[in-house]
Structure formats: structure tokens, C-alpha cells
């Protein structure tokens, strides 16, 4: 059986330019097969502009990795559509389509795309329609676990079709919600339009706890993430059997080289690795987070 591929998901946080560039130049040496680049959360984050991301993709492609340009999950302004159009027009990379605007622009230009986790695909028929539009790989949304994927695959095969390449979020904080509002700006009591790009001070997001002090969520600009860094490593035998082709690792501020090395070893081993993050409840058909309190 083919070894699973490893991908670096798009950087969800906002890091200074030099830190971001240094991170990706290091990543070019890591045993990952695919790297997703680009801003998926907030169009005001411009330490790297569209031109920089495209140039970085070209530079890193020389390392032999597949480069994919990721699109914003929530597009509201004309200027944001303009950025998306430039990513699609670049033509050198596949696009990770994180909303329907990206699907449509890829479809109009005939550019292959990866359906990102914030695009809603829940069944075999929707998947087939999007494959007609140019979908080549699918990253299921966070709430889709083993049973749903098994049923979906059975339905695809029963229709006499083939599955696209499947990529699962194997490591990282789960993206849970997006809003027009910036929650980082709200927490710091500044207006979104004069935010001062303060999310740059929180390279792993801003922690939100319950009133009894239990860590709960992460605020990341207009995005809300779960607090826990989930880890599907221990499920690798099942993922392999399910035909998962790519394991997505979301960049965190520290220790990513070790995380990649851990999964690189694990994908080559017949026995599952020990867990290095939290159990992902969604995968087991349960709430995404670990049971709280006395449960």
C-alpha cells in the first residue's frame, strides 16, 4: 500500500513576515509532500501579500513539494475577490477552495482545486458534483468522522464512481466558526477597522476559558478554534484502511519540525504512534471536545 502523504495545512495565525518566511524555508526541508500557502482567515493580514505568497509557492515548489494556494474562508469585499482572482489566475498551483466563490472562479478558469474544510460537503452526490467542477482532493469538514466517511465512500462506490484523494486534519486546533466580527479586536477593545493587527501578538491564537478557568476555545481574528490540539495519529491503522491519502498538520508556533518527524515515522510504521495531542471526538461520532467537568 502507498505511504500516506503529509501536508502542512495553511497557517491559520498571523505571524511577522520574517518568522513566516523562516518557517516555510525550514518546512521545505521537512518530509512533507504538500504545503498549503496563503491567508485563510483575515484579508487585513498583509505581512505577506498575495504576490509574496505566489512567489513563495514558486520558490518552495523547487524543493519538490506540491504547493497549493489557499483561499479565504469568508469573502465579503470586492478587494478580497480580487485577491482570489489573482490566486486562480496565477495558474501554477492548485487552489484550496474554502468557500463557494473559490469553487466558482476555479470552475470558470478550469483550475483544479482542493475542497477545504470550510466548504460544506456532506454526501457522495455533492462530492460528485464538485468533482465535475474540478475538485481533485477533499479535506472533509471537522464534524465528519469515521462512520460518515465510511458511509459516503460506500455510496460513491455503489454509484460506480471513484473517491477523490482524501485529506484529514490529523494534527492541530480545529477551525470551528467564522464571523464578520473580529473577536481579537473585540477582546482588546479596539475597532476592527483600527485593529492595529494585534493578532500578530498571539502566534497560537488568544485563549478563551470558561468562567471557572477551564481552557475552552481559541480566538484567532474572525475565526474561532477549539482549544485542544487534536491528534489522529493513534487512528492511523483505521485511516489507512479507509483510504485516507493525506494527513494534514496545521502549523503551530512551536515544535512543528518534531510534529512532522513524528507523523513521518508513524506513516511508515505498522503500529500506531502514541498520542501527542488530544483525542478528536468528532472522529468517533462524539462532540469534538473532550468531555468537560464530571463526565
Amino acid at each position: 500500500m502507498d505511504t500516506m502523504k503529509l501536508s502542512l495545512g495553511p497557517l491559520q495565525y498571523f505571524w511577522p513576515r520574517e518568522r513566516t518566511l523562516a518557517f516555510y524555508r525550514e518546512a521545505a526541508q521537512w518530509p512533507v509532500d504538500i504545503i498549503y500557502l496563503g491567508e485563510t482567515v483575515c484579508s487585513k493580514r498583509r505581512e505577506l501579500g498575495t504576490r509574496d505568497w505566489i512567489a513563495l509557492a514558486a520558490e518552495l515548489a523547487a524543493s519538490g513539494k506540491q504547493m497549493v494556494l489557499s483561499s479565504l474562508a469568508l469573502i465579503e469585499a470586492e478587494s478580497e475577490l480580487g485577491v482570489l482572482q489573482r490566486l486562480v489566475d496565477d495558474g501554477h498551483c492548485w487552489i484550496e477552495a474554502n468557500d463557494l466563490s473559490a469553487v466558482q472562479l476555479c470552475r470558470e478558469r478550469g483550475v483544479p482545486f482542493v475542497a477545504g474544510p470550510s466548504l460544506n460537503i456532506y454526501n457522495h452526490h455533492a462530492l460528485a458534483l464538485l468533482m465535475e467542477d474540478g475538485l481533485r482532493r477533499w479535506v472533509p469538514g471537522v464534524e465528519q468522522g469515521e462512520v460518515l466517511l465510511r458511509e459516503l465512500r460506500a455510496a460513491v462506490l455503489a454509484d460506480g464512481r471513484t473517491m477523490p484523494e482524501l485529506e484529514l486534519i490529523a494534527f492541530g486546533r480545529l477551525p470551528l466558526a467564522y464571523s464578520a466580527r473580529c473577536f481579537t479586536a473585540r477582546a482588546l477593545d479596539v475597532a476592527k477597522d483600527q485593529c492595529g493587527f494585534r493578532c500578530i501578538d498571539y502566534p497560537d491564537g488568544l485563549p478563551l476559558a470558561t468562567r471557572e478557568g477551564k481552557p475552552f476555545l481559541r480566538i484567532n481574528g474572525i475565526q474561532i478554534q477549539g482549544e485542544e490540539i487534536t491528534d489522529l495519529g493513534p487512528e492511523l491503522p483505521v485511516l489507512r484502511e479507509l483510504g485516507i491519502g493525506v494527513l494534514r498538520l496545521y502549523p503551530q508556533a512551536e515544535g512543528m519540525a518534531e510534529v512532522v518527524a513524528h507523523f513521518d515515522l508513524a506513516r511508515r510504521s505498522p503500529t500506531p504512534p502514541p498520542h501527542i495531542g488530544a483525542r478528536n471526538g468528532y472522529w468517533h461520532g462524539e462532540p469534538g471536545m473532550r468531555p468537560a467537568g464530571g463526565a
Partner: protein
Amino acid sequence: MQLVCPAGNLPALQAAIDAGADAVYAGFRDQTNARAFPGLNFDDAELRSGIGYAHARGRKVYLALNTYPDSARLAQWHTAVDKAAEFGCDAIIAAEMAVLDYAARTYPAMARHLSVQGSATTAPALRYMHERFGIARAVLPRVLSIQQVERLCEGSPVPLEVFAFGSLCIMVEGRCQLSSYVTGASPNRHGVCSPAKFVRWEEHDDGCRSVRLNNVLIDRFEPAEPAGYPTVCKGRFDVGGEIFHALEEPTSLNTLELLPRLAQAGVAALKIEGRQRGVAYVSSVTRTWRDALDRYRAAPQNWQPQPGWQPSLSKHAEGHQTTLGPYHRSWH
């Protein structure tokens, strides 16, 4: 502009029609719609009866089929589309591609509206849904500013419906997993947000109350403090040592003062949220908006909010507070 009002059950449907709704939206009593709450919604006979009531008065009924079926349950959504056509619904309101595709192929003459849950916020996204599934209308997510709505009206291939009043989802609809992260039950898959069976209130000796969602503390209230329904997005949390409504206060959307701008932008329909609310809410809110729309139609240049309108709407708002929400830039 058309006034589209919520009908959580047959009495609410009749109340909305009597109060002047041009159309009502309703759902079946199952997970095919995004208000799958206990005791709410319609069985087959009730829906037929509701459609009869509306059609006899020249009004329309839209059926909300706006959740996301997984492969194993897709047939149930197909059946719901079949029934919508058989019963004579004027349109279905759907978000999911397989549901829209089935309806477009099987009943091309029955209008398809893109639900707010479909998360289409741009002209290309709307173009996709129009070219692919022939949608006749789209309901916009509650994330756009009034300027963005105006621009989208110019570039959209289909007429647009926007939310005018009601509870405010602050996250992009169709793409919020806060409820499922905590409870496993999601708006997309199960048609519910923070379902009541996971809610636990606790009374403390000092008179304070706490409320938990599947054991996660969402908020704590002082003895006299009003307490709202515990969705994650409207709880109070600790960020950097400060306790506050980190995501949003319990408040309702109210766009009444924007009515002229929405009309001039070419918005086709105004939607009132609240299928989970009772007859009193539906009657009163519908009547106020009917009056506002009628006065605008009669004399657009002289339109201004009447003194009784805002207090009447605020009475029905969450936490008795209203906001222009994302329509207004300062909310962001």
C-alpha cells in the same frame, strides 16, 4: 419588498398570514430543517392545511429543507422535496448541493431558494448556485455590511433576501461548529444549535444561577440578572483575565431604520427570524413590519420609523436589546 415570516407551527402560520406576511416559511418535524426543535414544525396534514390557508389568501409558503444530509440519510431529504412538490409549496429553501440538484432535476418548476445556511456571500458564489442549480433567490448570511449588500444586489444573478429582524447568528451560517464541538449536535447535520437536552441550570445558595451546556459552563447570573438561552456564542468567558461576552451579547438583529436603503438597493425580500417563537411574537413582529413596508410603499420619500415600532420590536428581542449587527460597520 416581500415580507417573509416564520411559521413554527400551524397557529403561527395563520397568525403570520393574518398579520400581513407575503410569504411564510415552515419545516417538517424532523432534521431536514434548521429548527428541528421538540414540539415545533409541521406534519404532512398540518403543512397541507397551512398551504391551503395561505393560498386561499394569495400568500406563499416556502419549505425550509436547509440542513446537510449525509449519504446514508439523503433519501429522507429527497422524500421531503417530493412532498414539497406534491403539497404545492411555492419554493423550497435549501443549502445543500445534493438536495438542490435533486429538486432542480425532479421538479424544475418548483422554485429553489438558496438558504442562509448555504453561506453564499459573493457574486461568484451566487453565480455558482444559479448556474448549477437554477436558484431563483438567495438568502444572504448575516455577515455583510449595508454597503456590501448594496453592491451585491448589483452583481447578483438572482434576487436577494436579507434578514430584517430576529435572533442574531454572529457566525457565518452553515459554517459554525460551536454547538457540535460541545454537544455533538450541529445546525448543519441535525438542525439544532445547543439543544435543550444538553442544557443544565444550577441554582446556588447565594441566589446566583449557572448554566452549562454538556457540562461546559456557558455563563453565571446574579440573582436579578436576566438570563438568556445558553448558546456558546452568547456566553460570558474569560479572555486575558476579563470576563465578558467574548463573542456576542444576547441581542437581536433589527434593521428597521435601514428599510429605505434595502428597498433602494433592490432587495427582493425581508426575512423575519423566529420559527421557534410563539404566535404573539409572530403576530406582533409581522404587523409592525407590514405597517413599515406599507408606509414605505405609499410614500417612500416621507418614510420614517413610527414612534411605536421600535418599542414593540424591542419587546420581542433577545435580552430586549436590538442591534444593526453586521449591517453597521461599528459592530464588526
